[in-house]
């Protein structure tokens, strides 16, 4: 097993389009790193460059301390799992899994042993004689995994392997993949579009936007300390709320003013003082709100008054939607996140929309006017010009 080093890697297609720019990622031996970002951000291109299916136009990629820029995919000792599984339809499950071993001219009994072991690990030993056509989606997914693990390669490269499964199965396979990884401890580079997958599976998550690496860190760090508006808005579901706020500093501390509401910032970064009298983008995660009746007053020290416009009761959580008469935050990053969801900037309308996650026991009705508590230590501050976090 081996580490993967991606050094100053860039990709320019022959037609001049730039897909990646100066990407640096070091994946340690045995680590599970997830590349996440909106469609067309270059994450799959990067994975394919590691696999050797795309040329590396700039920089250097090495696998297990060996530079692979000029090495053919078959000699890189990696295994790849494709989005559509790419099982060979004319071969049985057994032959699908044995294919790479046969090409390497391994002795027959060794191949047999390896295939059967892998099949056992994945619980597909009953299916070895079947053709891919006769398998369900989840079984095909397992066979695709089997084809990868049978070779015991330096690294696994996975390109949205769960995206063709239905929601329930995806959750199950997500857990199984995680389990498999802790069992095999093979270095894994995993591409996904689904930020929940990224958060739950990765040892570290790399967020990519327009071919540029935005941030790479553990899921928790990324969630708690996003480096810019894009990462903050892309990671987390429901997404972080953004609102323009004015900064006022006094001897007592910093006050944030948005619309008719004023809250005092606690543990605000020093740099925030430089924005005195200026507008910043304030980010509030849904869980930084709480119904004031249920709020722990020690943490949720601030309050704002709102009119509930929509109530979503999920059982375990309740989400409330409300609007403030403030011009919505429209930055390029937010536009891009919306576009990825098939929306455009016009859905923002003329008011700023908020979503708050509150205690499911709260007895609130739509249209009601309530006080909503805020935990000011969980606020995020961004520069409206650069989109970078103010720290």
């Amino acid at each position, binding site marked *: 097993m081996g580490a993967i080093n991606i050094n100053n890697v860039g990709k320019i297609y022959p037609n001049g389009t730039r897909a990646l720019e100066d990407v640096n990622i070091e994946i340690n031996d045995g680590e599970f790193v997830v590349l996440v970002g909106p469609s067309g951000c270059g994450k799959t291109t990067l994975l394919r460059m590691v*696999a*050797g299916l795309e040329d590396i136009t700039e920089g250097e990629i090495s696998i297990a301390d060996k530079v692979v820029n000029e090495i053919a*995919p*078959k000699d890189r000792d*990696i295994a790849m799992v*494709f989005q559509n599984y*790419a099982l*060979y339809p*004319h071969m049985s499950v057994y032959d699908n899994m044995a294919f790479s071993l046969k090409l390497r001219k391994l002795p027959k009994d060794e191949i047999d042993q390896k295939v059967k072991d892998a099949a056992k690990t994945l619980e597909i030993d009953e299916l070895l004689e079947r053709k891919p*056509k006769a398998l369900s989606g989840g079984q095909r997914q397992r066979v695709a995994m089997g084809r990868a693990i049978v070779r015991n390669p330096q690294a696994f490269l996975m390109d949205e392997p769960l995206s063709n499964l239905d929601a329930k199965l995806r959750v199950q396979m997500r857990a199984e993949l995680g389990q498999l990884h802790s069992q095999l401890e093979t270095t894994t580079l995993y591409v996904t579009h689904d930020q929940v997958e990224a958060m739950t599976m990765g040892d570290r998550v790399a967020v990519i936007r327009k071919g540029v690496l935005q941030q790479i860190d553990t899921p928790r760090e990324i969630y708690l300390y996003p480096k810019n508006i894009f990462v903050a808005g892309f990671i987390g579901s429901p997404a972080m709320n953004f609102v323009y706020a004015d900064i006022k500093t006094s001897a007592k501390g910093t006050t944030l003013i948005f619309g008719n509401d004023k809250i005092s910032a606690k543990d605000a970064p020093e740099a925030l003082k430089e924005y005195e009298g200026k507008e910043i983008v304030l980010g509030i995660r849904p869980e930084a709100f709480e119904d004031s009746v249920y709020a722990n007053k020690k943490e949720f020290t601030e309050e704002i008054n709102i009119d509930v416009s929509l109530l979503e009761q999920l059982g375990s959580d309740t989400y409330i939607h409300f609007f403030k008469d403030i011009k919505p935050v429209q930055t390029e990053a937010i536009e891009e996140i919306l576009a990825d969801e098939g929306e455009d900037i016009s859905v923002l309308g003329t008011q700023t929309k908020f979503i708050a996650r509150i205690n499911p026991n709260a007895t609130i009705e739509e249209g009601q006017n309530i006080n909503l508590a805020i935990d000011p230590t969980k606020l995020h501050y961004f520069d409206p010009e650069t989109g970078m976090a103010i720290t």
Partner: protein
Amino acid sequence: MEISKFTNWFKEYGWRHLVGLMFVTFAIYPILFVLTNSFADFANLTNSKLIPNSLTLKHYKLLSGDPLVPYFQWLYNTYKVAFLAALFNVFLGTLAAFAFSRLQFRGRRAGLLTLVIVQMFPSFLAFVAIYLLFFQISDVAPFMGLGTHFGLILVYLGGSIGFNSWLIKGFMDTISPSLDEAAKVDGASEYQIFSKIIAPLSRPILVVIFVITFIGIYSDFILAAIFLKDKNLWTVAVGINTVFVDDFNADWGVIAASSVIAATPIAVLFIFFQKQITGGLTAGSVKG
């Protein structure tokens, strides 16, 4: 009550049977006609009928016994030429199709376009040129010149590979390129991707192309007639036409008998590959 029930049935289903029956009659009649006439003792076409008054095996005897009519030699020649030409056709067409479908090279588009444009000219236009070409080849390489089976096979190949490559390429384009990539990562070379993945998956279309080419060549008369001079090298179509047809007379009984003998293996071939042929014709329309 009973009548309206029948009318309803007829409106719903019955008319389809009627139409089907018409087509079947239409298709079967000539076959039946040839079959019965091969046993009939008629002098010519004008006094022949579907069901003859008396039966005879004399036409078959003539074909199998007469030393002046090496019918089974012709039959063998026909099979040999058709089989080899169809086989090389499929083989070379598949290689060309793989290159056009999967590989990137300079002149790929131009090559594809040339194939189509050249195919648009009917091959009859080229007869004189082909004749002259092989006439000269005969001087240099007699084994593949005028009057040889090898030469004839080459002519057949030239006439159909282009079009067939297009058909096969179209089929290969529907095979997901991620299979190639999976094989590449698995360690396959370009040739192994072709031989172990793409070619086996193209089998339905390859079978169709083989059968269509085979039958096309099997029933060809003009090219073979121009090309082949030696009686022992003739194909069935050339032999029968030369020996049994003259300006004023044609021995229809012998022609019918020879048709029956020649057509039977083809019919068997069709029945054998029926599933693959229909499968190949519709394959690619729905991605599986």
